[in-house]
């Protein structure tokens, strides 16, 4: 519909670290988005493999001498590349010394030329009109919009052609299906509800759009946390509140971005370990906001929620279980209570998942076949036994690691989307 | 024998109308909904006329026209496209297409142009 030259130009920032297997295909897919003006900035964060070489060769890149200003301090930039080919004229590749994801995004912010930035994971698949829909909140409100996020969907087992999802399929593995249930709960119920009361604290790092000036004023991404996506939004909101400037954060209730989730328990463990550390770090950096009425919803609802239900829940659950086992050994257990309480808790968690499924069926209905619904219902019943405890354990381990002072990002092992080659990044 | 026409168009409503109209006019029509399918059909069967859109999935209309001009030079082509940009129309004529009709189009006019193109041959 909209092909207007008046739409604001967007800069897509995609950090790449050791992505040689798929980076060229991913960029090709990004080049075909349906949006009049956008720039793609790939930040090669000191990859040790051939990521940069592949990009240079495939897109005919040469060094570019456009001036930029290092507003946010980052690791040194080796060079900025642009393509000699007209058809890739909106592609920019930044080659820099390794400094982690946050540092790479900051370099991208310094170098990109547009006022709206869209940070994405380089390997996620965007819907063709994703940018168009994401831009909408920035152009629709009376208040200044500083950021917008959307619903993330799971791409495992989906059929991908030319960088587009052409058929949505349900993953074959239980571990991926359990994550589908989990994502439904998080996005269709959690974030949707939080956005309704303007209490959103997290825009997923896989796909989010930001007002560049607001990000710069807040100081860019924090390189000292593994939860840089959450920390940035919390800091931006905190700053706007302290400045007393009216603003809002948009949320697009449409599935715009598809990402591959871990199908390997080991990798899932690393991911959740990292998420737990990110949450703990963000809450600790911004602990002044918790219960602070000055921050309104954020202080009185959002941050306490994250403290108790996101950060502390795994710890409480773990100690509950430990207590149960202790009583069991001491022979002090009241089985009637234990069992009846277990049943309430179990039914409640299944009810929560089923409600999320219900929302999905009511709204988007990406999984259109009746047998897919059945499989998801089964997954919802099994999840509390065979998935949830594992995630809790990973989160607990994350907190333990944090106390011991572990900072590194866990590496992700991905099976290339649309193909079967394994991109091992150990 | 009836003249055979291949219609390449991804909008199913347009396809159905064209098929209906041209069948009424006494032609035999075959339909392909994307460029890849069109190439396959062109290699297997013979036609007297090709009507094609330019924006097609997988293989574009321009690529399709190039293929026809190189391999089946006797097959006349009518382009049916939403594009009103002069350069696109020029590109198509430079590749040697017989006629260019822009959408929205008048079915009666199209029918006349089809008849004329087939007679010229």
């Amino acid at each position, binding site marked *: 519909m909209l092909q*207007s030259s008046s739409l604001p130009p967007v800069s897509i920032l995609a950090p790449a670290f050791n992505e040689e297997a798929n980076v060229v295909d991913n960029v090709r897919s990004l080049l075909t988005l349906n949006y009049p003006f956008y720039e793609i900035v790939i930040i090669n964060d000191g990859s040790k493999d051939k990521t940069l070489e592949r990009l240079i060769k495939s897109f005919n890149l040469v060094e570019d001498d456009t001036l*930029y200003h290092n507003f946010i301090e980052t690791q040194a930039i080796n060079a900025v590349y642009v393509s000699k080919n007209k058809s890739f004229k909106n592609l920019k590749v930044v080659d820099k010394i390794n400094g982690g994801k946050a540092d790479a995004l900051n370099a991208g912010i310094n170098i990109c030329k547009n006022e709206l930035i869209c940070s994405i994971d380089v390997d996620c698949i965007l819907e063709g009109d994703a940018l168009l829909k994401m831009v*909408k909140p920035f152009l629709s409100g009376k208040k200044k919009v500083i950021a917008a996020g959307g619903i993330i969907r799971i791409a495992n087992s989906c059929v991908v052609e030319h960088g587009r999802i052409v058929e949505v399929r349900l993953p074959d593995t239980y571990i991926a299906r359990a994550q589908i249930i989990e994502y439904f709960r998080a996005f269709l119920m959690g974030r949707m509800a939080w956005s309704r009361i303007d209490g959103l604290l997290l825009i997923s790092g896989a796909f989010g759009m930001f007002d560049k000036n607001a990000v710069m004023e807040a100081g860019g991404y924090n390189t000292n946390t593994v939860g840089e996506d959450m920390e940035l939004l919390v800091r931006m909101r905190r700053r706007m509140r302290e400045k007393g400037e009216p603003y809002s954060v948009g949320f697009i209730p449409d599935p715009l971005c598809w990402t591959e989730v871990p199908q390997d328990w080991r990798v899932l463990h690393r991911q959740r370990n990292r998420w737990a550390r990110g949450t703990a770090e963000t809450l600790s950096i911004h602990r002044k906001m918790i219960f602070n009425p000055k921050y309104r919803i954020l202080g009185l609802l959002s941050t306490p929620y994250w403290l108790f239900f996101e950060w502390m829940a795994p710890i409480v659950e773990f100690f509950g279980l430990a207590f149960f086992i202790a009583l069991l050994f001491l022979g002090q257990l009241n089985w009637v*209570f234990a069992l009846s309480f277990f049943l309430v808790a179990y039914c409640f968690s299944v009810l929560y998942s089923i409600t999320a499924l219900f929302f999905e*069926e*009511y709204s988007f209905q990406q999984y259109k076949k009746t047998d897919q619904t059945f499989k998801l219902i089964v997954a919802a019943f099994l999840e509390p036994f065979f998935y949830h405890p594992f995630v809790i354990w990973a989160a607990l381990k994350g907190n333990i690691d944090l106390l011991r002072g572990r900072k590194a990002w866990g590496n992700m092992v991905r099976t290339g989307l649309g193909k079967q080659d394994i991109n091992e990044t150990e | 024998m009836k003249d055979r026409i291949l219609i390449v168009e991804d909008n199913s*409503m347009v396809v159905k109308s064209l098929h209906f109209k041209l069948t009424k006019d006494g032609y035999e029509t075959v339909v392909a909904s994307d460029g890849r399918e069109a190439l396959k059909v062109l290699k297997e069967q013979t036609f007297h006329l090709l009507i094609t859109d330019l924006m097609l999935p997988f293989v574009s209309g321009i690529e399709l026209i190039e293929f026809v001009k190189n391999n089946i030079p006797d097959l006349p082509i009518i382009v049916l496209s939403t594009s009103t940009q002069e350069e696109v129309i020029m590109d198509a004529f430079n590749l040697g297409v017989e006629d260019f009709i822009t959408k929205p189009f008048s079915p009666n006019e199209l029918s006349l142009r089809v008849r004329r193109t087939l007679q010229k041959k």
Partner: protein
Amino acid sequence: MKTWEDSEWIFKINAAFTLLFFVLILSFILTLLIIRLYKNRRNRLKKIYEASAEEFINSYLFEEDIDRGVLVEKYEIENLKTNLQKKVFLKSLVGINENFKGESSIALKKLFHQLNLDAFLLKNLQKGDWDKQSRAIYLLAELSIKKNNLVATFLNAKRMEVREQAIYYYLKVSTGKPLEFFSRLTTDLTPWELIYVEDSLKYYYEGSMPDFSKWLDHKLISIVIFSIKMIAQFDQFENIPKVIPFVDHPDEKVRKQAIKTLCKLSCHDILGKLIDKFPKESTVIKKEIISAIMQLGIRVDLLAIKTHVSENDWSTKLAFERVEQHFNKLTA
């Protein structure tokens, strides 16, 4: 084993909640399945209706030796009984109409009235939810049905989707005064809506372009900015003198757009004034002036402002240096 009355309250509560949750789970699952089956059926029906509608429309248009009156009457009685049937039929009708012009297109509009579908649309427009309303307005626009006053009430509707369709309607249906609705607006249009108006003017509106200077004194600032912008978009050079005063407007956004427009219309005379204004301007306007110098000026113009680019204002400085680099490349 204790009986229910003997057991402790905590057990009772647990049992009660378990039961409640369990019942809820079951009813949700049941509803889920019912919705799924309903949707499956509806989708199957839609496909059948769609095929029937397209078949009928094509016969109506292209079949030669038939009595169209009888055909239409029979179709209305047999195939347009439910709302779903009407909805699907309208979708097909508009879909086909989009691609046709000439007598076929006229015939399709006549068919719409013959089948009494206007009554159906008006009912949706007056009583329906916002999605039905916006759809109805869209269909009225596509079929160019004159209901200006009725649609006007939706220009200030609460839902953005409805407002958008109302704007689209005006641009599509009106032949001479596409922006007549500006005078009926009571609140500012959002940037998104203005982009929508601009797009519709460029791609759907078929009449002659209005003179945008007549909205330069509109009470809504968004409309003023839009008009200044459109003067550039549609190359209305004759309006340059009317735009020049807006370079001194108190609102920064208006000044910015005025500079952009004058640049686009290659108004070289404005450069001197902009250079004079430079020291006192905000960062946003400073950057705009630098960009104007790049488009309209020469190196000397850039040097004229150099002393007013502060070291601390890094974004203005960066813009300045980029243009300097640009001029260097030209002379090299």
